[in-house]
């Protein structure tokens, strides 16, 4: 078996374990390339039946419109149900407060909406497209990762995870996060997209966009942040990760085709999440967010 095939087999085994062990699983779908790959794997895992669980999208209200268009198209294509948790609702209900300051982001606000959605839908397992090569705290995560009543990750007391015996036993109120593509690298994801001819949001391909420089990163101009017009430039860019518009930076690129993108990533001297302002807030930015229930 080639490596991509091995990774596919590993992921589908995990997806089937989730469905076998839990009553109410769901797929956390962000609209980015990793969750699109995971959605496709879920589809393959149950053919010729339909995917036997819904998707959950936590919508910050600051999405790239291109990802929402594709999300709705994929829902049709795979005939799967979608639940949307709106961060705006959590704000309106006074459960979270919008960040202040020049570069306010709704990234960290998502956690509250996510946990509430999990609890409302009574989900006991949530699959996500996180990968261990993305970030140092993620490199520590198990395939089945237990979250307590408050959605917290206890990084110091993770269950041993041996061979392919995935322990999904939990108490009521707890849930697990399952990561079927844990062992995939960024390049594996891209090569799988090419191999399976998957459609991804157009913003992953080079396009002309108004951007400005923020701490050495090219941020997209949006209605959410006020930028001095003199600092705005129109450049040919693409996105390497797709998060909230308020915290995802673009990279300069002319790559309009998948082959060129893959070559660019292969030779890139910068890491994938190097363009995520949410990870740069502090040394343990990802770990701190994960501990309280983030993706």
């Amino acid at each position, binding site marked *: 078996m080639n490596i991509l095939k091995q990774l596919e087999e590993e992921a589908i085994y995990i997806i089937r374990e989730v469905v076998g062990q839990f009553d109410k699983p769901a797929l956390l779908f962000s609209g980015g390339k990793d969750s699109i790959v995971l959605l496709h794997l879920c589809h393959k895992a*149950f053919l010729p039946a339909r995917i036997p669980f819904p998707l959950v999208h936590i919508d910050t209200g600051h999405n790239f419109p291109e990802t929402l268009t594709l999300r709705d198209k994929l829902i049709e294509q795979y005939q799967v149900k979608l639940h949307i948790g709106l961060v705006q609702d959590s704000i309106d209900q006074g459960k979270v407060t919008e960040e202040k300051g020049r570069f306010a982001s709704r990234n960290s606000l998502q956690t509250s909406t996510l946990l509430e959605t999990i609890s409302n839908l009574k989900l006991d397992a949530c699959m996500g497209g996180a990968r261990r090569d993305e970030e140092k705290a993620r490199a520590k995560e198990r395939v089945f990762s237990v979250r307590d009543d408050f959605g917290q990750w206890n990084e110091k007391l993770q269950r041993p995870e041996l061979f392919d015996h995935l322990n999904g036993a939990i108490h009521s109120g707890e849930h697990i996060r399952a990561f079927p593509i844990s062992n995939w690298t960024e390049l594996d994801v891209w090569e799988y997209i090419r191999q399976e001819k998957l459609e991804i949001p157009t913003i992953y391909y080079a396009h002309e966009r108004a951007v400005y420089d923020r701490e050495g990163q090219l941020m997209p101009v949006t209605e959410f942040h006020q930028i001095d017009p003199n600092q705005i430039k129109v450049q040919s860019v693409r996105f390497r990760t797709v998060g909230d518009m308020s915290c995802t930076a673009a990279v300069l690129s002319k790559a309009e085709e998948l082959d060129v993108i893959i070559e660019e990533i292969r030779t890139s001297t910068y890491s994938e999440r190097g363009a995520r302002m949410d990870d740069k807030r502090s040394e343990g930015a990802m770990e701190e967010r994960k501990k309280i229930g983030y993706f």
Partner: protein
Amino acid sequence: MDLLRIATAGSVDDGKSTLIGRLLYETGSLKEDQLKHIEEKSASNGLDHLDFSLATDGLLTEREQGITIDVSHLYFKTKKRRFIIADSPGHIEYTRNMVTGTSNSDATLLLLDARKGVIEQTKRHFYITQLLGIKKVIFAVNKMDLVGYDQNVFDRIKEDIAHLIQNQNTKDLTAYYIPLSALKGDNLLLKSPKMGWFSGKVLFDLIENIAVNEPPSKENVLQVQTVIRPKLAAYHDYRGFAGKVKSGSFSVGDAIEVFPSGTKTKIKSIEQYGVNQEQVSQGQNATLLLEDEVNVSRGDSLFTPSNSIEFTKIINAKVCWMQDKALQAEQKYLLQFGSKKSLAKITDVSERIDVSSDGSKETTALGLNDIGIASFQLAHPVLCIPYPENKNLGSFIIIDINTNNTAGVGFIE
């Protein structure tokens, strides 16, 4: 290109994370922004060199204490091969995490400190690699810079390791020995001029070329994870038994038996993700469609009848215990074999193995990090093959029914 999964082992402070960080650095796997972060962090910690352990110790408490608590999974590649490294903790308290890292690896990189040689933790970790059936172990004698790159030191340690191997019940083990300095980069990618006396391969050469092709096991077993029944008109009578081929292979037309029902039937067709296949083999997921309407549910096994497959409600196993509450006779636990679960009563805890001498002592309980022998009486029969004969069918985890935690792992004797 193939994929090699390696776990690190060895005592705390032997330099495992530093070595792995260094390997990432030397192979160009650390990106500019990650390297810049390590430079800044090393400087602010007052170091005159780069602290490569920062590349792998991802938790705040780990960075604060300078130790590894849990396994980090790291990914890099060379022109020849791809690697997944499970960088595991060395502290005895975190042995369960070391076992976690090793259980999904093909080879182990066991580090020793040149100043200390073979110590208790070397023996413990080596014992665990052999319990798990790891056939390739690289003994890396690190910190050679601190003993003046002295050949005598290395030779003496090598001799002690050879003794350790002799004293243990190893099966098809290939051991490799290499003197190095992770901090200074000696014998990692290039031969160190300071150790001209060493004629073996440098670490990089070794991991790029180790062969780990395990022949497929002879038993043919597929464990069912889920039954696929599309609620679609076109597939009204479709019943696909989906799961992983844990061992061996299956072809269309094969006569098979269902465990535990004992029903015999034939394979009508095999699908992989909706596409028909003639044959599927070990490690692949498959959906089997059967000639007859038989009753099969999650956790059941489809297999080719063979003399080496046994069904039993009584198991004797070597156990590696991983929680504070001790394992004792009369307790009840849930055993999990892949997708099959069964309640079990502990009927006996008989021996505790002394990993440093490979002898054993009589006992009635196993505590945290102990390895010993226990007997289980199961509520349901399971398909059972000794672990040394088939790594894919001979292990199980032991789940505490009060806490739901994974309390230990068992290897069928």
